[in-house]
């Protein structure tokens, strides 16, 4: 979150939020640019579809704009942004529980022998895509709380302290939940990570 402290024009994030609260659209756009990748990234980890994630992220920023007056600087702006994004994504998932139009492992074609002969690079790319598809699929199978903490730590790269503030958890709980989430994912991904590796 720290890299979002200064905008493109060098203005302090606190000042930008204040300006945005007074209706300055440019300041708000600067805030959108500072956080768009993180919000989109978080959304895509849950819906696995770029267009849907893009829509969700836009809705998150509309919510942020509508609620700007309620932000009282009691937490970091980034923490508040993440909290709104997480709540919005949770609402979306609850409403679209049965819709499964996301990327699936079956959508990625198997590598054929002749493909490998034609282009080794293409085959490697396909293998990479299959690995990622499997990752998304396995992440989707996990309980929401584990998926969320893995997304914030291992994909978004947030610190334990930041995750604790966003999810309102103690550092100890962040630590143990993250460990349980990783262990579960590692077991699910065992076929692509190593053959027969891991604990018995």
């Amino acid at each position, binding site marked *: 979150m720290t890299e979002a402290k200064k905008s493109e024009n060098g203005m302090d994030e606190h000042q930008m939020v204040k300006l945005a609260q007074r209706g300055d659209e440019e300041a708000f756009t600067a805030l959108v640019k500072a956080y*768009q990748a993180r919000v989109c990234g978080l959304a895509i980890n849950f819906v696995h579809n770029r267009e849907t994630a893009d829509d969700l992220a*836009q809705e998150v920023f509309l919510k942020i704009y509508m609620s700007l007056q309620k932000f009282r600087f009691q937490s970091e702006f980034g923490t508040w942004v993440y909290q709104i994004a997480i709540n919005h994504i949770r609402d979306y998932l609850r409403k679209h529980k049965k819709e499964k139009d996301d990327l699936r492992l079956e959508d990625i074609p198997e590598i054929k022998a002749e493909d490998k002969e034609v282009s080794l690079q293409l085959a490697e790319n396909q293998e990479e895509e299959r690995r*990622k598809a499997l990752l998304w699929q396995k992440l989707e199978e996990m309980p929401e709380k584990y998926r969320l903490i893995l997304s914030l730590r291992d994909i978004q790269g947030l610190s334990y302290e930041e995750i604790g503030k966003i999810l309102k958890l103690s550092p100890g709980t962040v630590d143990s939940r993250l*460990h349980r989430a990783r262990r579960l994912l590692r077991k699910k991904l065992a076929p692509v*990570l*190593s053959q027969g590796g891991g604990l018995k």
Partner: protein
Amino acid sequence: MKCRKAEKLISKLLDERLEEKSLARLEAHLKVCPSCARLLQDYKKMKKLMSEGKIESEPLPYFAERVKARLATESRPSIWAAAERWYAAAVPIFLVIATILVGALLLFQPSPKQYSQAEILLFQNQSPLKETQAIFEEEKPENRQLKLLFAGLESQETVRRGK
């Protein structure tokens, strides 16, 4: 060290949150446990795979501009938002005040006033003096006495009801 404990320490190692003492214990375990050494490699691969997911999470082009366009169409000017907020707060307050007023009006409604015979006669455009005059003009004294008695009774009745 048990393998389960080693796995917990591996998770901490990935986040560079492992203290020197624990790190030394883990390294000693990894040297003698090929299963956990493989586990460390698996976790490293998994972390790499996860971090690669971040690269794909870049927003679609012109994201901020599209948000700005949606704000222009979907958000209302703040003055309307403020008016709407005021309206939303004012409606229940108004309803509460109206209910209190109606209740007060129903509770404190004055009881119907008891009019005296003289007032009734005045409302009927008849002078109360005429009745008095009729009593005094009565020729027979017993009739006059009776009329006076009834008039007295009527006025006492009115006073009683007025109380």
